[in-house]
């Protein structure tokens, strides 16, 4: 067990390190001119030199990578226009275009993405469970079949299309739902909640499809088990039967897909963020792409990889806890 964990951690770290190096090389070897971009139109050679030096662009590539890694672990300093800027660990670089350390930028963006993902995760699991139970109990009826067909349709339609159309039309017709906007939970919890309600709703419905199907299937399966029949025979109320016994069985497969989904969604929330204008990780990275802000772009890539790797690790480990049948090879 310990060996497995250690091996997984080692593998995770190796992935992260390789990603850093690879993306570093890619970004900085690409024939662009980050110093020139920052320097601006009326760039004197002197100022260009100074900027290039402060971005450490005049150093050999290995030193640059070393400096970057060092910044991650211990922190480093940048000079800009005669001022030294302390960039404490973990230092993901410095965005000259925005005049801010990348860590701070992404640090502000991360809570947005996390709020979106976890909030919507709760939404779609709940919706899925409820809908699946609902359907399972009315198995075979028109409602059940309609629900199944509906989830199949919604789940197969391109997500961003549904999100886009919903984001446009729902505020138009159902005016009680407030516009989507971001307020940090520390500023105003109520506004935080109301601003995220619309995206949570839409994500909840769209992503619940597979959860509905899974919970319906396993609910049907478990509801026909002997022990459930016994429970019913014993006179236990239908509701207790369903909720206590049926749902518990439904939870295991849901737990598995859930872990993977969230890992995936953390980096995939960009569509939601873009359509609703929520300044999360994906949107910040997208803007960095548009403005060719290399440090932010790289920082975004790094965080994305780290998050995904960590979540995968977590899911793997949890899986071994949940399902002892999994062989730890």
């Amino acid at each position, binding site marked *: 067990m310990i060996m497995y964990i250690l091996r997984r951690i080692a*593998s*995770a770290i*190796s*992935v992260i390190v*390789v*990603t850093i190096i690879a*993306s570093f090389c*890619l*970004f900085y*070897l*690409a*024939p*662009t001119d980050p110093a020139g971009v920052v320097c601006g139109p009326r760039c004197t050679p002197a100022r260009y030199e100074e900027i290039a030096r402060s971005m450490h662009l005049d150093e050999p590539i290995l030193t640059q990578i070393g400096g970057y890694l060092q910044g991650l672990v211990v922190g480093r300093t940048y000079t800009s226009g005669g001022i030294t800027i302390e960039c404490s660990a973990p230092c993901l670089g410095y965005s000259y275009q925005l005049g801010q350390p990348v860590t701070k930028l992404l640090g502000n963006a991360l809570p947005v993405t996390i709020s979106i993902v976890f909030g919507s995760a709760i939404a779609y699991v709940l919706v899925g469970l409820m809908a699946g139970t609902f359907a399972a109990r009315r198995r075979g009826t028109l409602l059940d079949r309609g629900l199944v067909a509906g989830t*199949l*349709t919604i*789940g*197969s*339609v*391109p*997500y*961003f*299309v549904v999100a*886009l*159309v919903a984001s*446009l*039309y729902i505020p*138009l017709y159902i005016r009680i739902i407030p516009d989507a906007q971001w307020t940090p939970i520390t500023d105003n919890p109520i506004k935080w909640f109301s601003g995220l309600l619309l995206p949570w709703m839409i*994500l909840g419905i*769209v*992503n619940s499809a597979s959860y509905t199907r899974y919970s319906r*299937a396993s609910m049907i399966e478990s509801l026909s088990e002997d022990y459930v029949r016994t429970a019913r025979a014993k006179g236990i109320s239908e509701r207790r039967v369903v909720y206590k016994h049926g749902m518990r069985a439904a939870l295991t497969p849901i737990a598995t897909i859930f872990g993977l*989904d969230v890992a*995936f*969604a953390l*980096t*995939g*929330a*960009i*569509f939601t963020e*873009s359509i609703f204008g929520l300044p999360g990780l*994906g949107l910040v*990275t*997208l803007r960095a*792409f*548009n403005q*060719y802000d290399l440090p932010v*772009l*790289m920082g*975004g*890539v790094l965080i*994305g*990889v780290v*998050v*995904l*790797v960590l979540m*995968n690790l977590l899911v793997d480990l949890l899986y071994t806890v949940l399902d002892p049948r999994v062989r730890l090879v």
Partner: protein
Amino acid sequence: MEPVITGTETLTEPTVGTIPPSQGGAAVATSKSPTRIALQRLRDDKVAMICFWIFVFFVLVAIFAPVLAGIEGQSPTERNFDLIDRRTTFPIIGTTAEHWFGVEPRLGRDLFARWVYGARPSLIVAGSATLLTTIIGVVVGLVAGYFGGWVDRVLSWLIDFFLSLPYLIFAIAFPAVIISMVYGGNEGTTPEQVAKVRFISLITVLSILGWAGLARLIRGQVLSLREREFISAARVLGVPTRRVLFRELLPNLIAPIVISASLSLPGYIVAEAGLTFLGVGLMDPTPSWGVTIASAQNYYDSYPLYLWVPVLGITILVLALSLLGDAVRDAFDPKTRR
């Protein structure tokens, strides 16, 4: 949230109890290969057939786009400024006999022509990406699973690595780098060149990030197949490795391969449209549906047709392919039949 790109649904062993065709295996007249059985099941599934024909319809639309546009008499790139109200940039006409779906605001290009031509990038990109990821995934999976040892360890590490990459973030970062690497500098590039580079970089990115899932799947399958008697028999008989791989193992992997491909195709179509919508994939003047959706979203209340035509196009295509993919999976893998 993005749909899963490559088939990661759990698959079981290849259909039980049949002898691979290569062994000849006492071909009793009535026994059919598992592939044939699956295809028969598919053909019997009404919903699947409808979806299949919808897919064929879109493919035909894509192939015959120039013909269709010709029938209407418009081109997707010609700008009709005379049909635009100069004061508001809105078109002064709706759907007419010359413009079956109307024209777009600002530039006045014909929307029907752009729609039929728009089927092409989606299908070409998705098709190429599916093909590439399938080929790479299968080869890597076969080699890793069959040879084992350090080959397997290296390849497995690679698979894990690529599976750990956050797809969207890389899909954003990659084209920036590729485009500037290929066309950096002062020479500048024509819009056609830019379009081509974006096309290729999009396919590249999707393929790089997509093959790993299938590879892992195939590797798992091969690992279990490897121990079967017919493989050891072939080894003992001295059959060269290449034959074992391609004549013995591969036919047994048809099911997972087909399932994976049919599930990834709609995923890639959505990926292309989505990335293009974000501004990271293809770009004007390529008439991709993602491009049209991106420009049309602001006109959803004042000019709904502009938005709904590409939305419906992509929705129906993806829906049909997804249902078809589900049906294919059901047909090839009886354990998941409901």
